[in-house]
């Protein structure tokens, strides 16, 4: 007869507690999106319905517009970041650069200093040159912030590709650009894809910079969520939050397919 493993008792207890800590708040959010009526001390909403969803997505609601703005900004941010990060990452991983370590650290600067004072001053500067409240201004702020992911992951992705393969291509007559395009780039593609998704999500979720540089003319989903939440409209805020949550969780579930351990271990080196 199989002996019952008594260790499952503490294991189940800890895992159950962890599950509650992680999924409790999340299920709370989902409940709020479909709660028509919910007040203390009822554990669950008294009435369920989708009327708030209708309101959010109605032609007069501004969620669709914010969603579109958010996606346009995130897509432009990805294109600009990759255009900057692919050459930089290649140079940092393959070519000899003076002060390579310092250059890598330079990209960390936007993450290594509190951003708020910087955004405040960018907003002031953008205001003078007419970039405040424009999509272009917001994209520039998002690119600067996302570059560390783009450059570091691109550098790690290129480092994880075997140099010999590129040299083999060169030795049978491929030019440096061809060798890069046909050998190194495809092999690094999963890592680059990961960095693109990172940058996309960073931009989609960014609040502080958009709050100073974009508002009130550019309303992204996070700004809509903030406005609805501070107006006490928890249903609208929760629906917006859920819209932001879906891509984040989707990425979390697939991140390891793109970011393998061999790339991950080279990040920041």
């Amino acid at each position, binding site marked *: 007869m199989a002996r019952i493993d008594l260790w499952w008792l503490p294991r189940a207890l800890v895992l159950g507690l962890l599950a509650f800590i992680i999924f409790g708040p999340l299920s709370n959010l989902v409940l709020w999106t479909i709660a028509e009526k919910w007040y203390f001390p009822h554990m669950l909403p008294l009435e369920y319905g989708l009327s708030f969803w209708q309101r959010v997505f109605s032609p007069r609601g501004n969620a669709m517009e914010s969603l579109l703005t958010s996606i346009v900004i995130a897509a432009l941010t990805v294109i600009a970041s990759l255009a900057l990060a692919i050459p930089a990452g290649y140079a940092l991983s393959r*070519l000899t650069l003076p002060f390579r370590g310092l250059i890598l650290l330079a990209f960390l600067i936007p993450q290594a200093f509190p951003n708020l004072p910087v955004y405040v001053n960018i907003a002031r500067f953008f205001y003078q040159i007419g970039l405040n409240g424009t999509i272009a201004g917001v994209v520039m702020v998002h690119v600067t912030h996302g570059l560390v992911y783009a450059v570091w992951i691109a550098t790690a992705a290129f480092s994880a590709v075997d140099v010999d393969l590129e040299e083999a291509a060169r030795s049978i007559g491929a030019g440096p650009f061809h060798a890069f395009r046909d050998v190194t780039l495809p092999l690094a593609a999963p890592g680059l894809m990961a960095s693109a998704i990172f940058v996309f999500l960073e931009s989609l979720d960014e609040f502080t910079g958009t709050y100073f540089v974009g508002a009130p003319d550019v309303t992204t989903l996070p700004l809509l969520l903030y406005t609805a939440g501070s107006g006490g409209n928890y249903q609208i805020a929760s629906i917006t*939050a859920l819209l932001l949550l879906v891509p984040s969780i989707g990425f979390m579930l697939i991140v390891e397919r793109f970011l393998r351990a061999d790339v991950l271990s080279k990040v920041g080196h």
Partner: protein
Amino acid sequence: MQKRLLAILLVLPALIMIVLFFIVPLFASVVGAFEVGGTMGLGNFTKSFELYSSDMIFTLVIVTVSTVLIGLFSVSIGGYLTLGENPRAMAALRWLYRWPMFIPFIVVGQVMRTFLAKNGLMNNILVSLGLLTPLQTVGFLDWRGIVIAFVWKQTPFVTLLVAGAMASLDRSTIEAARNLGASRLRILIEIVLPQIAATLMVGLILSFVTMMSVLSVPLMINAQSPTMLTADIAFRINAHGDYGVANALGLISLLLTAGAALIYLRQSVKERS
């Protein structure tokens, strides 16, 4: 020589972006902190300390407590994922821990605001389970709410780094220690932890800095005084248009972070040498 020039040219556009849109405004904020009505002086700082010195301590305590908790949880989870003996429990934990990782701070703020409130779902559940009476419930929407939100959101990120570093360790020393009868806790602390300390440090410092600059969570969970410096900066700008004090507060939070960044720089220099 030509190759070196090419390398510099490839990196340059990205570097210019950082200089133009981060380092220059950062510099402007440092200069702006000393500008009082057209002349240079320390007026903004005296005003900052007068009005917000309790918020400075509040910020530092919250971020430090959160960082310590994040370190503790990430090492525990990473340690179990590396040294655990039950594949099914490990798989469950691996599946569980990472859910909050990419959830944006603004969503975390909204989620926690409704979950931790005095009449939020957490207290409602405890009341219906009979663990609390409605009169005993307390809201967590103060410093505790901010710490919970930070730890909830940042632990998976640090754990991902830590567990990745632990997984790529050489297993032979671990197996040797286990064969000699060392307990798993002792292996974790004495053998695994020293080898992944650099990675843990990087993760914690990045989290520290991130938490120092999050605006949405303090605004949504605890906007009344005492609050975090980020909320004060936003308030100075939006309510008073007072860039001087806002920049001074920015510089102060920068100095608080500089301590953490210094540790990181020393770590990475040591690693590269």
